[in-house]
């Protein structure tokens, strides 16, 4: 078989199979090197798998960046206890489209990752919660799951062991908040997707009150590579504290937007200039939103010196989040960017906690009152104050996710925002 029909494990842990035509079909995935890790994992046994994942330093790729091995360590070790694995494929953070890109081409890498993870965790029922808009991607996953059942990689007594696993694709129905793990659990339970107080954390008390491990698509899809080549090898990529590769979704003012897989710690400059062929439009960089719409904005100067790992971005007062990079050129109006951001959070607040329900509404309304010639000079201070009162006062992080970019823009682009607000009417 020609080399280009084999997975490229040297360069990629996640997009290793993306160059292979029709790799969504199980036979093609397998002949390219797929499901080898699953066989290996069943020989290794649960403890050794967990050790490798811990050793790899893999961090949760949904946004929080919590070490996966540690999270798995909190999970009940009683293999007889009823518990669940919930794959977060809600991908609703604005700017993010990496999970879609990964699974629509290669659904089996996720399924293989889930089989291995469920085996390690002693779970016999798993769900993939995918956002409702991704109808075609849900179908792709369902077909792939059917193929895996036909091969007896799912169902009863997998690979002749006493391990059983069922995976079901569960479609959401259009609600950002269902990407938050406890909101997702509420939604899976057939309720409004309203988050629940933590603790107890889902790993202790989650879906239906039972231990539930919630992991992102990208996190689970990294597991087969780690099992295949070892946790230590995974650290060939990335930094000491942010090991491995990461998918980045890049959109906005670049010549070539899309998804890339690169080692963590790569410079943002290299991503924009080399991978995305530079800033488009005016060709002059103004700012970058580095980790989805919740991440505070970086000025061009900050963006040109930051490296893309959890620590380096945090040191700039922002966050890596889901790895969604939105590039803004010099023609972009920062007030408009904030307006679109705030309209989103206002629409998506679940309404449960007062600071968020009221705060997102007020931030949105204050910024929009210029449309009615009602802006006041101190509106920027008022927004800053409202945002401050929203921080850390609610059940989930949506409130903070609205407040952080607001305060980020106020801090870094105050003058421009004041000009925007004081230009009454719709400009």
């Amino acid at each position: 078989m020609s080399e280009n029909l084999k997975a490229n494990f040297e360069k990629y842990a996640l997009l290793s199979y993306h160059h292979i035509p029709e790799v969504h079909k199980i036979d093609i995935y397998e002949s390219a090197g797929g499901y080898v890790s699953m066989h290996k994992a069943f020989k290794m046994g649960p403890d050794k798998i967990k050790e490798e994942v811990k050793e790899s330093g893999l961090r949760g790729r949904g946004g929080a960046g919590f070490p996966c091995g540690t999270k798995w360590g909190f999970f009940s070790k009683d293999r007889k206890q009823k518990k669940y694995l919930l794959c977060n494929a809600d991908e609703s953070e604005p700017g993010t489209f990496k999970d879609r890109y990964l699974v629509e081409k290669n659904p089996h890498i996720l399924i293989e990752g889930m089989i291995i993870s469920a085996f390690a965790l002693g779970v016999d029922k798993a769900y993939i919660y995918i956002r409702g808009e991704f109808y075609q991607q849900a179908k792709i996953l369902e077909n792939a799951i059917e193929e895996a059942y036909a091969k007896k990689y799912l169902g009863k007594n997998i690979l002749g062991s006493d391990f059983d696993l069922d995976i079901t694709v569960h479609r959401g129905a259009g609600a950002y908040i269902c990407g938050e793990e406890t909101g997702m659990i509420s939604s899976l339970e057939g309720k409004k997707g309203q988050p629940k107080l933590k603790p107890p954390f889902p790993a202790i008390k989650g879906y239906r009150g039972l231990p539930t491990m919630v992991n992102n698509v990208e996190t689970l899809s990294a597991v087969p590579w780690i099992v295949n080549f070892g946790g230590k090898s995974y650290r060939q990529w990335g930094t000491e504290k942010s090991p491995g590769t990461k998918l980045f979704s890049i959109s906005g003012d670049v010549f070539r937007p899309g998804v890339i897989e690169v080692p963590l710690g790569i410079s943002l400059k290299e991503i924009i200039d080399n991978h995305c062929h530079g800033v488009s439009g005016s060709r002059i960089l103004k700012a970058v939103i580095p980790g989805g719409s919740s991440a505070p904005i970086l000025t061009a100067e900050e963006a040109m010196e930051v490296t893309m790992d959890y620590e380096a971005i945090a040191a700039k007062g922002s966050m890596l989040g889901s790895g969604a990079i939105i590039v803004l050129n010099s023609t972009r109006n920062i007030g408009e960017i904030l307006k679109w951001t705030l309209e989103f959070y206002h629409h998506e607040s679940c309404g449960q906690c007062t600071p968020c329900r009221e705060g997102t509404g007020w931030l949105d309304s204050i910024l929009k009152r210029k449309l009615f010639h009602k802006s006041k000079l101190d509106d920027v201070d008022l927004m800053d104050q409202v945002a401050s009162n929203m921080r850390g006062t609610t059940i989930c992080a949506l409130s903070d996710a609205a407040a952080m970019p607001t305060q980020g823009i106020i801090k870094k682009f105050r003058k421009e925002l004041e000009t925007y607000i004081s230009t009454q009417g719709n400009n």
Partner: protein
Amino acid sequence: MKSAEKFEYSAENKKKYDHLLTRYDDVESALLPALHLAQDQNGYISESVMKYLSELMNIPVVKISEVVSFYDMFYNHPVGKNIIQVCTNITCSMFGGRELFQDLCRQFGAGQLKPVNNNKYMFQKMECLGACEQAPCMRVNNDYHGKLNLDEAIRIIKELD
């Protein structure tokens, strides 16, 4: 549109519903998929759909109604045969997503969630659709179309049955 009529799953959908129940450890968890199935059949979640699911699943109507009103993709009012969703989040707005939505509404004499053209079309302004690399993007029924201008969007919509 069979809105006023009494709703029940078609034989095929009842079979799908029964299969759904085998995938979950309780009936409530099957509510979202059961609603998707009902909406596919009926176009929207009418009162008779809620009543039917309430009896079938033993969930109070008020709880189903609460769920339906929470999610953007469940409709508790009649919809157009084709649902056209335009993303107006950050990246799509940078590339004219908002103007695209407004221009399409103007072109078809439509407004947010108001079926037009003998219920052939319904337009919906959406938050991030998760396809920012294709900005501005539009979702027509279950398919994505990206990097659109107004003319292309109109052409795609006019080709719909």
